[in-house]
């Protein structure tokens, strides 16, 4: 460890951390706008809840489990090594610990935001029907047993890193989190959707987005925040960061066009929800590849991601799993595609650039390991919570709206306060919990 801080790199990673933090509120908008007006708050609260839970546990044991020098079988770091960020911030002389020009505490900030958004991503699969308390507990458990280990395996020198068993075939490439974030969250979403079950009326009654300008705003903020995610993952303010930045933009633009083209030809109409979804699909696909492909290579990578995800979102109706906001179709599918596409498009080792099949093989292998690992861990946690706390709210609450039943709020009141909704009287609340179901009889 050299002790000289590179202030430019530090500035960029401080900023990148801030950008990635913003992604979670951005996701809350993206998801919230797709929910119905009677469940938008719950949808947003799952993202904000992830910020709360992960924000606390990360400094306690998250960092240590991800980046402890004491690896447990290459799968996870020892949570005690740096528990509470011990020995992480300053050295014994009181000087900030610096690595490659970056104070380690800045890196902690950057990393916590990745854990937050990954957990939040999953919530899109379980709109309108999950107990909020169970979700918060899930967030803590899943971060601990699925996310931190994956981060350790890929980025903390564990099994899926250069130093792992596949490293001898080719160095696995996951620039900014195709496996750790998107495959991980995508699989978890699928498992949760299956364990929790479909909403009443899924596939029969219309469940259309209630506020598409929110969805588009969310997509815009995600794009903006993703520059921290991808270009920040260069861990320096340099040419690689610049390349990751340009690739992120190019692939995302192409993916938007890819999604819109599929819609135009299949449905007759290019939609705004399609544009927003294409943006996210492109961002997902370029995540593992942001530093490893050329901008020209980013065009087909994005285009295909958009088209693939546009086709994949229909699968849930065919197979009957209620992945409400298409986490599987977008994150799992484009996450897999981006990870595997590197086998073809990696500028040094990809098939199209003169490489042999080894990169492709390694990319498929790490994707598979991530799939299986995340699938098993999520299944165990999800079932455990099902039999203990329970996942579903009452059917009455689901029908009347989870915002009202669980959060005792309604998202909107456009009647001006002098109209119906305010015809009640205000009083300071008393400790006794109020009844909020709407189906009970008066007197």
């Amino acid at each position, binding site marked *: 460890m050299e002790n000289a801080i590179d202030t430019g790199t530090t500035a960029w990673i401080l900023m990148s951390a801030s950008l990635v933090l913003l992604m979670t509120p951005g996701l809350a908008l993206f998801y919230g706008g797709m929910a119905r007006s009677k469940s938008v708050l719950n949808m947003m609260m799952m993202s904000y809840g992830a910020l709360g839970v992960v924000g606390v546990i990360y400094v306690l044991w998250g960092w240590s489990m991800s980046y402890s020098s004491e690896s447990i079988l290459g799968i996870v770091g020892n949570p005690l090594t740096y528990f509470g960020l011990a020995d992480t911030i300053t050295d014994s002389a009181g000087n900030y610990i610096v690595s490659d020009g970056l104070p380690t505490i800045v890196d902690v900030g950057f990393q916590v935001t990745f854990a937050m958004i990954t957990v939040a991503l999953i919530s899109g699969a379980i709109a309108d029907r999950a107990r909020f308390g169970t979700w918060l507990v899930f967030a803590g458990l899943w971060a601990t047993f699925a996310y931190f280990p994956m981060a350790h395996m890929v980025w903390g020198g564990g099994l899926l890193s250069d130093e792992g068993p596949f490293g001898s075939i080719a160095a696995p490439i996951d620039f900014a989190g195709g496996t750790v974030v998107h495959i991980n969250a995508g699989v978890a979403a699928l498992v949760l959707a299956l364990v929790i079950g479909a909403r009443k009326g899924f596939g029969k009654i219309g469940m259309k987005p209630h506020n598409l300008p929110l969805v588009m705003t969310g997509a815009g903020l995600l794009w903006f925040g993703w520059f921290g995610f991808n270009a920040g993952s260069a861990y320096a303010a340099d040419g690689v960061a610049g390349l990751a930045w340009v690739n992120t933009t190019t692939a995302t633009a192409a993916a938007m066009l890819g999604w819109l083209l599929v819609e135009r030809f299949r449905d007759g109409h290019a939609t705004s929800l399609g544009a927003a979804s294409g943006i996210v699909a492109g961002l997902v696909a370029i995540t593992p590849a942001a530093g490893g492909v050329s901008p020209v290579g980013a065009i087909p990578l994005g285009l295909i991601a958009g088209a693939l995800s546009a086709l994949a979102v229909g699968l849930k109706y065919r197979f009957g799993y209620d992945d409400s906001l298409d986490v599987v179709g977008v994150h799992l599918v484009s996450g897999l595609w981006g990870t595997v596409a590197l086998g073809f498009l990696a500028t040094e080792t990809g098939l199209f650039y003169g490489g042999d099949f080894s990169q492709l093989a390694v990319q498929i292998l790490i994707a598979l390991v991530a799939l299986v690992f995340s699938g098993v861990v999520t299944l165990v946690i999800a079932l455990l919570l099902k039999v203990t706390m329970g996942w579903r709210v009452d059917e009455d609450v689901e029908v009347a709206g989870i915002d009202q039943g669980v959060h005792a*709020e*309604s998202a909107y009141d456009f009647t001006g306060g002098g109209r119906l909704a305010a015809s*009640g009287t205000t*009083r300071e609340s008393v400790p006794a919990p*109020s009844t909020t179901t*709407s*189906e009970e009889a008066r007197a």
Partner: protein
Amino acid sequence: MKLVTAVIKPHQLEEVKEALEAYGISGMTVSEASGYGRQRGHSEIYRGAEYTVDFVPKLRVEVLVEDMDSTSVVDVIVKAASTGRIGDGKVWVVPVEEVARVRTGERGVAAI
């Protein structure tokens, strides 16, 4: 002619529509409403202050029918709108003296 007005639970609209269609009536006008009655409203809490919302969302369905259909239409709606729980709503019938179709200017039963 008669005007049958029904105040129903929002979720029952589809069934009422289909029942009316099955009966042979394929026109209606629907508007949003808030109902007050035996069915309780709910409470909301904002920064610890509790708000009681006394009204529950309802839909208001209006159907113009010929005199002879009015009783059956009431029956059809009552059946389709019923969930058996408090707040299922009301149906009432009012006499209509004249009906006109705007597009054609037709009057009376032909205009329905």
